[in-house]
């Protein structure tokens, strides 16, 4: 009946299951050289055929799935925008030592004024302003207004006296800090997005220091807490039902299992919609509670962390029940009975004899629920409000609204690293090839 079937002995046997043991012949027939060559040839042919079957999908997944993820990872460290906008300036800045406290020479400023003028004419100055502003807030207007004014000045004049022009327009161009930022933004490979994603930044000397405001670490922490809470809730709620189903007569269990599987098969958006209908201010739950006079004023339940947790617990509960149920079904009830008849009290016997045998099911379900919930996007986006947002939502925000794709990629890579670690643990303990559906 179960979708995801993991039996206790499968879990034990996974340790060496993946390795292919070479075929060992029990009888010691001695092959002639020609026969051995033929056997090797056959073996090679079978290998080639097997590979031919796998290759199309392997290529497809590599191109359609792995390559996109790879480019995203690359994007989180490679950011050539500034180096493409002002290549000559950066070239000339490479000789400038930013720790001296003296601004770059006039020659550098001349080159920069020419490039800024070109950007202004190509309408790309805003792009540069945005990039520099990210590293040094407040630079945006400086760059934009300078660029606007530079447009009117003659090119030849800038080539020789661009530095004076810049300083005359805005005295801020004197600041060493500004040039330091420009120089650092110009590096095409950068760790700055990872630093931002970890709430770190570089100080004037280039050392890594924590930021004053912690946004992302806090969000990772919150996502972990929510995922853990959901995992614990699904385990607590799922355990009694799985136990009941595993010990009920087959016919009852099969019928009741439909009530677990129907939600599992129902669109996630449908289930999220249901929770909106249930939890909103004038929704079913509030109306019911008011009708029964338990409360007089409606409670604000939707668009909170509470609604995210309850909706996700509901959505992910089948992922806990199904593996738990199939493990429990394989547990021999006579151990528990033996413990009772040998004089153990029911509750200690249950905890010490039965519960440890369900551990494979609980751990499989818990890992699955945790992995899925840590990266959840849709449900928090729809019912979470501001307080129930998770790390995925901030990634989506940087993709769609703030257009800071590199930061989104860095945040995503960190999340991916966490999930891959859990996936690896799952593969080691449960074995990915032991996941069964249907």
């Amino acid at each position: 009946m179960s979708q995801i079937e993991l039996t206790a002995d499968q879990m034990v046997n996974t340790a060496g299951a993946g390795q292919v043991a070479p075929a060992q012949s029990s009888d010691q027939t001695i092959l002639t050289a020609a026969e051995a060559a033929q056997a090797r040839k056959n073996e090679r042919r079978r290998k080639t055929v097997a590979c031919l079957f796998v290759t199309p999908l392997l290529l497809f997944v590599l191109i359609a799935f792995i390559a996109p993820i790879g480019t995203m990872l690359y994007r989180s460290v490679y950011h050539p925008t500034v180096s493409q906008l002002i290549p000559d300036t950066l070239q000339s800045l490479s000789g400038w030592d930013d720790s001296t406290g003296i601004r770059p020479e006039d020659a550098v400023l001349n080159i920069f004024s020419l490039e800024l003028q070109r950007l202004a004419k190509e309408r790309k100055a805003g792009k540069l302003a945005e990039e520099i502003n990210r590293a040094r807030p407040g630079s945006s207007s400086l760059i934009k207004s300078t660029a606007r004014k530079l447009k009117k000045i003659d090119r030849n004049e800038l080539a020789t006296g661009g530095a004076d022009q810049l300083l005359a327009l805005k005295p801020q161009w004197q600041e060493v800090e500004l040039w330091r930022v420009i120089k650092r933004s110009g590096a095409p490979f950068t760790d700055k997005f990872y630093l931002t994603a970890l709430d770190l930044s570089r100080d004037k000397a280039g050392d890594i220091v924590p930021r004053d405001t912690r946004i992302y670490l806090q969000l990772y922490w919150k996502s972990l807490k929510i995922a853990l809470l959901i995992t614990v809730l699904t385990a607590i709620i799922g355990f009694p039902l799985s136990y009941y189903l595993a010990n009920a007569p087959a016919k009852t269990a099969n019928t009741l299992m439909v009530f677990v599987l129907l939600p599992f098969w129902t669109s996630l958006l449908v289930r999220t919609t249901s929770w909106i209908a249930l939890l909103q201010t004038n929704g079913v739950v509030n109306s019911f509670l008011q009708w029964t006079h338990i409360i007089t004023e409606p409670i604000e339940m939707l668009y909170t962390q509470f609604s995210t947790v309850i909706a996700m617990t509901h959505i992910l509960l089948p992922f806990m029940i199904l593996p738990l149920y199939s493990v429990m079904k394989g547990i021999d009830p006579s151990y528990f009975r033996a413990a009772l008849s040998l004089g153990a009290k029911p509750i200690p016997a249950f905890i010490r004899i039965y519960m440890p045998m369900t551990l494979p099911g609980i751990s499989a379900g818990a890992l699955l629920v945790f992995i899925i919930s840590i990266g959840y996007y849709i449900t928090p986006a729809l019912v979470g409000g501001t307080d129930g947002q998770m790390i995925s939502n901030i990634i989506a925000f940087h993709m769609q609204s703030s257009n800071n794709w590199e930061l989104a990629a860095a945040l995503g890579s960190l999340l991916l690293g966490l999930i891959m670690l859990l996936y690896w643990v799952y593969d080691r303990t449960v074995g990915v090839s032991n996941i069964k559906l249907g």
Partner: protein
Amino acid sequence: MNFPKYFTIWQKLGMHSLRLTAWLVLVFLMLPILVIIPLSFNAEPYFTFTQGMLALDPDAYSLKWYEEIINDDKWILAIKNSFYIGLCATVLATVLGTLAAIGLSNPVMPLQRMIMAMLLSPMIVPLIITAAGMYFFYTQLGLAGTYLGVIIAHAALGTPFVIITVNAALSGFDYSLMRASLGLGATPIQTFFKVIMPLIRPGVISGALFAFVTSFDEVVVILFMAGPEQRTIPRQMFSGLREQINPTILAVAVLLVVISALMLMTIEYLRARGERIRSGEI
């Protein structure tokens, strides 16, 4: 419930409370899905039961939200898109996934475990990361905002399920049948369609259904990659829930529940059939 005679009163009480808890959990699982069914027939544009509905007044119920779906071009386009994209992605995922599962189940296959973990990874990577990566990559290839791009993306997400179900169907597969067929003069293609395919068909079909549901349900990749022309049902629901909530969404949700129930029934039938094939009854 019948208890053995030696059960104490406390044990009986314990069993009763277990049964009660189990039923409460079942109610928790089903209630949110059931509650939207009557709400979708609400005559008023609310997400809640009106006084008239509770009094079972026939005037308080109406089919107007269902009519609204039929009369709204956006919903019709979304329904068409969902089926079109879903079916194309399913065919692609099923063909590639079935072949790969056959190759992977062969014990001579090198690097089996590693390849398996890689092919199953689309199931584990959070959709938001997949969507972000695909958006960068497919835009460069000019595939963002096209049907082809969305179909390829959805097919990639569906293949792990096909591999898992076909792999399970192959677990009891007797390879001597394949050798016998080849030895008796059948071509590899004949062997595939006449010998292997009939035996693993339930696994292939349930894998295909999983792949279809994956695409049919998917919204995050669509949200990032699809243009307005490729809006699907979940995408339309997502924007409906964010912008103006009205019971049309509930009516769509009820239709989706009906579709899921049909799929569940098919899967269960296939599973029972697959078990019988494996145990040698058919």
